[in-house]
């Protein structure tokens, strides 16, 4: 049996143009168990989800795939696959042994000597005690992808990544420079971090609660605790991905966004800018020129 007017309501509901009274009528009708109208509504939803695949496909530039694989290999986090690897080792001991040998050889090579082509950065400012992989360094030192830079109390450092980006960390901050070639990935585990990224450069900062990605901008990140992270979009646009949620924030003059799990679930909140000033931004921009 067909209910033409409810089918019409269903389509209008999917389009978001059904008024409140009719929405209520439709809901009551569906709750009454009308399988035919429910199926019609499902088909309408399915059609709107499917329609975009009818757009003409466009082959992307081949470099895009390499860039994605670069980010994957740099170890951006994945969920739920490690559990399945262990059983595989159990029933395939020959492969497991061979894999272990490869791992040991690779680890020995990379720990003993880093490749000459490894992308690098320069410590352009060092005030106070700055550690890289636990060892004290001074201004002008070359820094490599994979290294961890940390600042002690009262210390601050600026790291210039070629001509493409510069970041500044203040006291008690810890940053791992996961990749220094594009797409760049920095992991801010703790502390205060301001960055200027040239337009068009792909640059991401991962924090305990979310990943912020810019394609050229000025932005600030502060990890106050593993449950509280703050970003400020000082200029242009920042894309923030956290726990499956995507937020894109644009601002021409400081827009603060706080991510917090203190209530037990992840919350995004627009907040007042804090922790940095226009003078900080100007000073860092001058260092990249």
């Amino acid at each position, binding site marked *: 049996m067909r209910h033409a007017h409810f089918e019409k309501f269903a389509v209008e509901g999917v389009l978001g143009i059904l008024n409140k009274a009719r929405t209520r009528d439709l809901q009551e009708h569906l709750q009454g168990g009308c399988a035919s109208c429910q199926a019609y509504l499902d088909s309408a939803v399915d059609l709107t989800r499917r329609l975009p695949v009818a757009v003409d496909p466009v082959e992307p530039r081949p470099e895009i795939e390499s860039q994605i694989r670069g980010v*994957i290999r740099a170890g951006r986090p994945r969920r739920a696959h490690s559990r399945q690897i262990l059983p595989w080792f159990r029933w395939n001991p020959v492969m497991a042994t061979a894999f272990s040998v490869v791992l040991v050889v690779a680890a020995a090579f990379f720990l003993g000597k880093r490749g000459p082509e490894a992308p690098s950065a320069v410590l352009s400012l060092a005030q106070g005690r700055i550690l890289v992989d636990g060892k004290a360094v001074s201004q002008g030192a070359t820094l490599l992808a994979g290294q961890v830079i940390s600042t002690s109390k009262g210390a601050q450092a600026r790291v210039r990544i070629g001509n493409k980006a510069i970041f500044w960390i203040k006291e008690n901050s810890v940053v791992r420079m996961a990749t220094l070639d594009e797409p760049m990935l920095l992991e801010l585990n703790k502390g205060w971090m301001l960055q200027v990224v040239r337009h068009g450069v792909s640059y991401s900062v991962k924090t305990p609660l979310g990943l912020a990605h810019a394609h050229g901008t000025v932005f600030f990140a502060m990890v106050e605790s593993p449950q509280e992270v703050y970003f400020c979009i000082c200029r242009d646009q920042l894309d923030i991905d956290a726990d499956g949620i995507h937020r894109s924030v644009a601002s021409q003059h400081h827009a603060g966004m706080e991510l917090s799990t203190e209530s037990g679930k992840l919350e995004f909140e627009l907040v007042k800018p804090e922790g940095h000033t226009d003078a900080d931004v100007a000073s860092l921009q001058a260092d990249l020129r």
Partner: protein
Amino acid sequence: MQFGEDAIWMKGIQQQGDERAFSRVYRKYSPVVMGIALRMMRDQSEAEEILQKVFLSLWERPGDFDPSRGSLPVWLAVQCRSRCLDRLRSRSRRLRHEEPVAEIPETRHRVPGALDQVELGQQRELLLKALASLKPAQAEAIRGAYFDGLSRADIALKMRLPLGTVKTHLARGLSAMLELLKGQQEDLR
């Protein structure tokens, strides 16, 4: 089963972090995602950035794809569209346009339809054929909303029609497409 290989690849990505499986998914479906992103954003660099984000998100959270709610290409298309709409909203805020852009609603767990059983190319043909059989104004409104990511107000401006007429074209166009596709799906069974 045409989408059987998708299931195998997704299992490889989800359970073993299999990069080769990821590569196959990327090579098969990146043109679909790029096509949508480019059409909506009309900017190569923004479209490429969205393409990267969609596939990195598939790699990082493969469990977010639930085959009971639709096929992999449709899921990728929805992810791409949603990111494009975020960007367009952000542009629109900058330009001080307040009209929201049409959202695609979430879907419940569902029984796969006949369209899920055919190759993507054939799905596209069926959708385009259904679209071509609509009245031109209905087809234009639907293309504007679902291909270009335009708000209803933008469609009204572009078509030089009152907003209410655009809404009517959208509703009648979708209803007509549903009828046409129902007939085509019955032929496929």
